[in-house]
């Protein structure tokens, strides 16, 4: 469990000692040592303060305080000395920029206020991210204001030094390495920036250095497979929007795999249905853990990682009619059905695989070739450059280091001491290198082992250019002056940060600043693009550009070298016994008609199949996966991400072992499906992978997890990386195995029950809908027959007549002639990615509360994604089995563990027109606006919490503490220090202790949007005003608009036959509408479900009639 110092005051708490629990549950410690003081007669007598004096002091201080309160407080206002022309205080400026951390790529727009970034949105002009943005990209804003960042160059031990000294030490190290005829290495994550590459090239030519790319999450195996098929070390571009059938083998393409934001956009396009478009894609997922993509699939088949090869080969056989040897058991029926879907949709089918095993990927490529996917659903002519890490080179580097051949190493945006498999013993090898330099922006596991740290700027402070894909370019521009700029002065003598590229150029003897370096580089690169300045300005304005035909990954002069290298690599690959023979066989052919072969080559798969057959399987297999929030761990010191509940497990601030409840029963683990967060804690288990022992992690029941497998998220268990992330969870990178020349993320493991329990913070302990109609679902078939399928309207009995609940009104309606703001959420395209949650956090200054408070159910998120599983039990089934009501409901709480259906539902304040919260507020702090908003007036609230008590959706949040001022939260709350406070949105109040808060439907944006229209003297255009959640949604599942405009998108969704409102039958009339989820299944709704619904309704009616 790593370091436990943060959340446990001692074993008492870990063991839930009753006395400790009692004390802990007492929020305000009432113990005041009065008795002790009074009993101490000595102290009383010795005290020279008489009662009279005491009263005098008391009177004086009260009077002084009163008088002081009467004085006018003086507020200072400091205007600019020379105001920059583009800044109007109080008005935001937007800049187009790019986020790329070596893992996630996204073209972004940055909102700045008074020259500080406060919000990140997607850039709609980008052809890759298309205006979408993910939770991680949203949260990267907070990483800028991380006071744990390095503020000065320093030694590995943390002694701050000047840049001059740092430069001289680095240069001496480099010179020594050259003198000793040893290698100089730059180790970096994938670099897609042409100018950075040019800077590295300048450096490497000066010091005869070598640049090695190494990604924490490796795509090396897949790259090798693609090279064997196409001769390019590239990943292709996937076009999910062109696919009718999507079959994914363990690829979580909606959150992590290659380009998740783009995939989400494309996927949603195929899933959105309307009266005009009645088709949707069929998504079949084979996987071991329950991933976000898998939970959105129409059909999901849990398989063990070791079975994946067999399934892929079996599918290959069915699709191509081939007869490759299938080793292992395969569900033939499932494979045949899947193959039928695929072959029925040739040219519109897509098979993807998340494995990093070259052999499996080769077979997958072959399936796609047979299906005619290349050129249709896979665009291999537009290669993707974002994943270029080369595992083989990395392993070779480790060997070189160990043998003492490396004289100097520079780390740029990578942290191999943390991410490399333990087997490689990277730290030990590193100790043999004389000069070690890191460009890290904040501490990590590698920096203490380095000699010198030359801190880079944050991405929002620096210039860069990016070429994520052939023909696609985007610029990254600074949106703030570097926070830790070199400062000279008596008070604050900071040496500051410096852009890594500038450091490299400086060491190579080039003093250019990187901005002009990029500009001149672009001038050379785009010499056909017209006036260079106009082109540059336009590109900078747009953020992302696409130029047909342009975009070799390397500058021209490097091309020749690359070609040579390619040949060389081929020989290597041949020796590596992957499918080398095949590729060599085809090499000549390839050279001849490289351009003609649209489909790539068809390598012989026998070797690959043999290798797959030889793969080890085990009784317990472990999958190391990237969680939606933390990803590869590069942003683990980000409290927004740490507190973002994982969409599937709903766990915050930890990684855990996910295990199928059936396995847990077999392993005698205590299943706490619905547990009291403060009292109960899950059992722990110790996982051992090939000799690497992981510290005990809590075991969490995960319905849908393949039997015999467990899942553990990577990116946790950091040390030396900052106050937020240190000691949270356990690092599992070290257990990743090295198989077939690439790092794998699945392994056989042994698992042993630990002695202790471990308390986790889970935001949703309730797993199923218990037969209530919270998420309404139907099948595509049923929906095509009847658009109201699965959405039977609720009715109530009023005065003995069955009526529509909207016809019954307890209140006198008042006339509201103006706008009527509303949200609509399409559950069919909501993939549960939680981008909206982080977006809301950033927009509305939602505080982070930390693990302990989350365990007390006091998380402050204004929007949450509820996740439900389907249950095997239904009311009808319970009746048939004579279970009785209590037992039926108890069983309904348990999700069907084998393979449940998963539902996601974003819940924010529903802005009920007849809001239950409004009527109970004794001070009218919450009331209804003329525009349909449920308003919350913080300065009026006295904190009775009646409203939260009366809210049926539990969306109201109470400020138990002054989160921005309370020292207990300084390790988790970004709003604590002066730097962290800069992230706050000045258009939204920071709430204080004792105040209720909730979703305001981003009223600040509504007000701003209305003002723009009023000033322009025009009507509001639909879609012009967006809430934070609707703007950030990568699948456009949330839309916001004005119901008073019948042409607005939101009005149309509210009038859609799939539309329903939560608890509509109670007459609360919410302003948020949901559209029924439609799954592309041919099955009709289960009989049980139907009966249950009708029965439920009957009961409902009875109850209503009763009341």
């Amino acid at each position, binding site marked *: 469990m790593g370091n436990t110092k943060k959340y446990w005051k001692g074993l008492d708490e870990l063991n839930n000692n009753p006395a400790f629990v009692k004390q802990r549950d007492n929020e305000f410690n009432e113990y005041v040592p009065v008795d002790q003081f009074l009993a101490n007669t000595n102290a009383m007598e010795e005290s020279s303060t008489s009662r009279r004096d005491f009263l005098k002091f008391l009177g004086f201080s009260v009077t002084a305080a009163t008088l002081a309160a*009467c004085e006018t407080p003086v507020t200072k206002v400091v*205007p*600019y000395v020379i105001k920059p022309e583009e800044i109007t205080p109080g*008005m935001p400026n937007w800049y187009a920029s790019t986020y790329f951390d070596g893992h996630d790529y996204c073209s972004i727009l940055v909102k700045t206020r008074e020259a500080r970034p406060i919000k990140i949105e997607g850039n709609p002009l980008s052809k890759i991210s298309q205006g979408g943005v993910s939770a991680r990209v949203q949260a990267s804003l907070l990483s800028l204001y991380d006071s744990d960042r390095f503020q000065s160059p320093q030694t590995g031990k943390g002694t701050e030094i000047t840049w001059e000294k740092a430069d001289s030490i680095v240069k001496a190290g480099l010179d020594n390495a050259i003198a000793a005829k040893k290698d100089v290495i730059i180790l970096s994550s994938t670099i897609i920036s042409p100018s950075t590459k040019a800077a590295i090239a300048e450096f490497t030519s000066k010091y005869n250095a070598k640049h090695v790319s190494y990604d924490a999450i490796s795509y090396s195996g897949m790259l090798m497979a693609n090279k064997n098929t196409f001769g390019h070390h590239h990943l292709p571009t996937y076009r999910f929007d062109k696919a009718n059938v999507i079959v994914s083998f363990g690829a979580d393409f909606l959150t992590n795999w290659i380009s998740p934001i783009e995939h989400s956009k494309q996927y949603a396009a195929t899933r959105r249905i309307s009266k005009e478009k009645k088709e949707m894609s069929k998504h079949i997922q084979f996987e071991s853990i329950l991933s976000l993509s898998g939970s959105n699939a129409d059909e999901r088949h849990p398989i063990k990682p070791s079975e994946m090869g067999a399934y892929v080969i079996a599918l290959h056989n069915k699709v191509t009619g081939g007869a490759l040897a299938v080793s292992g058991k395969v569900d033939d029926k499932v494979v045949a059905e899947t193959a039928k879907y695929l072959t029925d949709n040739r040219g519109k089918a897509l098979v993807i695989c998340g494995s990093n095993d070259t052999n499996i990927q080769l077979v997958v490529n072959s399936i796609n070739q047979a299906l005619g996917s290349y050129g249709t659903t896979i665009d291999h002519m537009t290669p993707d450059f974002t994943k270029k890490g080369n595992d083989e080179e990395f392993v070779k580097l480790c060997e070189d280091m160990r043998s003492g051949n490396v004289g100097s190493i520079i780390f740029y945006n990578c942290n191999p001491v943390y991410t490399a498999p333990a087997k490689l013993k990277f730290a030990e090898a590193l100790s043999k290198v004389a000069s070690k330099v890191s460009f890290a922006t904040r501490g990590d596991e590698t920096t203490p082992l380095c000699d010198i740290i030359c801190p880079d700027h944050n991405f929002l402070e620096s210039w860069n250019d990016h070429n994520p894909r052939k023909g696609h370019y985007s610029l990254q521009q600074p949106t703030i002056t570097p926070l830790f700029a070199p400062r000279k002065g008596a008070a604050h003598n900071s040496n500051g940060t410096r852009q890594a590229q500038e450091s490299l150029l400086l060491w190579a003897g080039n003093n250019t600043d990187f901005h002009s370096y990029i500009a001149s580089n672009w001038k050379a690169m785009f010499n056909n693009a017209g006036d260079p300045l106009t082109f540059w300005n336009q590109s900078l304005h747009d953020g992302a550009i696409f130029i047909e035909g342009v975009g070799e990954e390397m500058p021209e002069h490097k091309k020749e070298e690359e070609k040579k290298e390619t040949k060389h690599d081929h020989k290597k690959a041949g020796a590596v016994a992957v499918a080398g023979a095949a590729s060599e066989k085809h090499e000549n052919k390839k050279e001849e008609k490289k351009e003609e072969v649209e489909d790539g080559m068809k390598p012989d798969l026998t070797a690959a199949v043999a290798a797959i057959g030889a793969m080890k399987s085990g009784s317990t297999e472990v999958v190391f996966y990237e969680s939606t929030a933390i990803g590869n761990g590069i942003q683990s010191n980000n409290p927004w991400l740490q507190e973002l509940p994982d969409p599937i497990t709903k766990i915050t601030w930890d990684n855990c072992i996910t295990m199928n409840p059936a396995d847990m029963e077999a392993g005698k683990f205590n299943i706490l499906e619905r547990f009291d967060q403060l009292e109960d804690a899950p059992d722990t288990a110790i996982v051992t992978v090939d000799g690497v022992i992981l510290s005990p992690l809590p075991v969490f029941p995960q319905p849908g997890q393949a039997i015999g497998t467990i899942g553990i998220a990577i990116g946790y268990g950091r040390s030396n990386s900052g106050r937020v992330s240190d000691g949270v969870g356990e690092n599992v990178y070290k257990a990743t195995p090295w198989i077939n020349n690439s790092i794998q993320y699945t392994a056989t493991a042994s698992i042993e029950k630990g002695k202790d329990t471990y308390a986790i913070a889970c935001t949703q302990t309730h797993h199923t809908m218990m037969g209530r109609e919270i998420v309404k679902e139907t099948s595509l078939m049923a929906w095509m027959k009847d658009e109201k399928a699965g959405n039977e309207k609720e009715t109530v009995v009023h005065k003995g007549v069955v009526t529509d609940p909207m016809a019954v009104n307890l209140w006198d309606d008042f006339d509201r002639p103006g706008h009527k703001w509303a949200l609509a959420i399409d559950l069919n395209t909501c993939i549960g990615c939680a981008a909206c949650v982080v977006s809301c956090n950033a927009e509305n200054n939602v505080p982070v509360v930390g693990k302990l408070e989350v365990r007390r159910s006091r998380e402050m998120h204004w929007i949450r994604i509820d996740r439900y599983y389907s249950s095997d039990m239904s009311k009808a089934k319970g009746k048939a089995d004579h279970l009785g009501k209590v037992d039926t409901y108890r069983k309904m709480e348990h999700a069907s563990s084998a393979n449940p259906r998963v539902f996601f539902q974003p819940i924010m304040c529903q802005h009920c027109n007849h809001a239950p919260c409004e009527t109970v507020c004794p001070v009218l702090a919450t009331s209804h606006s003329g525009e349909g908003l449920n308003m919350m007036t913080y300065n009026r609230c006295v904190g009775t919490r009646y409203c939260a008590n009366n809210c049926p959706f539990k969306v109201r949040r109470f400020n138990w503490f002054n989160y921005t001022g309370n020292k207990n939260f300084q390790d988790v709350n970004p709003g604590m220090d002066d730097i962290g406070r800069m992230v706050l949105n000045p258009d939204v109040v*920071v709430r204080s202790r004792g105040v209720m808060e909730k979703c305001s439907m981003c*009223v600040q944006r509504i007000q701003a949007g*209305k*003002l723009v229209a009023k000033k322009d003297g025009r*009507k509001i255009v639909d879609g012009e005003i967006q809430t934070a959640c609707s703007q950030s949604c990568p699948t456009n599942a949330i839309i916001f608009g004005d119901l008073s405009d019948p042409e607005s998108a939101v009005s149309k969704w509210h009038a859609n036959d799939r539309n329903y409102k939560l608890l509509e039958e109670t007459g609360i009339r919410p302003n948020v509408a949901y559209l029924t989820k439609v799954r592309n299944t041919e099955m009709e709704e289960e009989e049980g479900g139907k009966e249950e619904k009708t029965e439920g309704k009957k009961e409902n009616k009875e109850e209503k009639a009763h009341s």
Partner: protein
Amino acid sequence: MGFKIFQLFLNLDVILLINLSRIKRENSSRFDFFNIQNMPKSFKKPQRKAFVILHFLLFSTFFLHFQSASAADGKSLFKQNCATCHKPCDQKLTGPGLKGVLSRVPSADWIHNWVHNSAGVLKSGDSYAKKIFDENGGSVMTTFPGLSNADIDAIIAYVDPGDCPPATAGPSKTEPGTGGENTGETKGGLDPFWVLLAVTGILLILAIVLRSTKRALKNVVNEKQGLAPEPDRTIWESFKHWCENNKRIVAVIILYFVCVGVKTCWYTVKDIGVYQGYHPEQPIKFSHKIHAGDNGIQCVYCHSGAEKSKTAGVPSANICMNCHKGISETANPGSKEEIAKIYYAAGWDPAKMAYTGDQHPLQWNKVHVLPDFVFFPHSQHVMVGKVECETCHGDVKKMTTVEQFSPLTMGWCINCHRTTEVKMEGNKYYDELHEKLKKKYGKQPITVAKMGGLDCAKCHY
């Protein structure tokens, strides 16, 4: 000044006399409750009335001065057109000082040509033009084709004799004086409060003297009529005696004071946190009266945010420098030191006429402070609502140190929203809404409140 003080006394006398006569009248009907209550009310804050009258008098004199100032045509033309680059004395600015200009130039006609088309004169190869062009760092003078020859002559007539600050005694010299008396704060002189106190003292002494005289006279009368002499009571004893005889009046008076006390307390408590009239001293003695009033600079020239943003904004030093590059000193005493503070802040070296880059941000004291939980957009009110700045900020043009004119309480905001009609004509945003509201309210005025202007979330979020 003597006359003014005389006037003041006169007025105070009149007021006091009126009041005294009223007291006498009311005393005659001893049990008339309402009149008795009215009595002290008429006494309430006589200072205020004195103020009003005093102000009236002062303003009348002020306007007299103002008119005489605007009579100097050449001077105002000079200020409007030339003052950014030239000074009416020997001192050089961007252009040369203009004192004795007539004696330097070839002819009066030459000046006309030069002002109308300096570039043309320069092109024609005129030797004097070339000379001043070189002397002044090779910058061409802005042309003023709009100025007539008569205008130019008027300007020359003003600048030729010179108008250097220490030597001249123009009418502007009295301006700071009047400004000071206006607020009664910044300038010395007689404070009306002390005048009033002195008058009250004199009257008291008078009353005591009169009382003893009256008693003496009464004694004489009594003696003549053979009655016993008036008992020799001290003032305190006679007051007690009177109180004993008039218990009801005393009770009413006490009740009245209790009521007034409670009321005062109530309003004082209510006004905690309300800083109406707050006018802090600023780091630079910047006078809105001189800038917005005398020189007629538009509010939004400096507070440009008012039209675009939530905040009107305090102008940055470079806005000041737009004018003060040229104006380093005015006729107002102390102006040079104050303007030097801007130069220090902006990092401007007036000797070299160049920026040094050594900036020192100014820390102004905020006058209008809204709590953080209120969002007040200026641009909404200025651009859409077409509210004049003066509506909330008062007559800033007359304020030397600017003060908070409005209470800025929520009640004040709400009241305005209740009474202000929305200007919907010509704004298409309101078209549809206007139709609906017209149907609903008929001919009633459509106020902000009727369009949701009282919703909490209009200002609190």
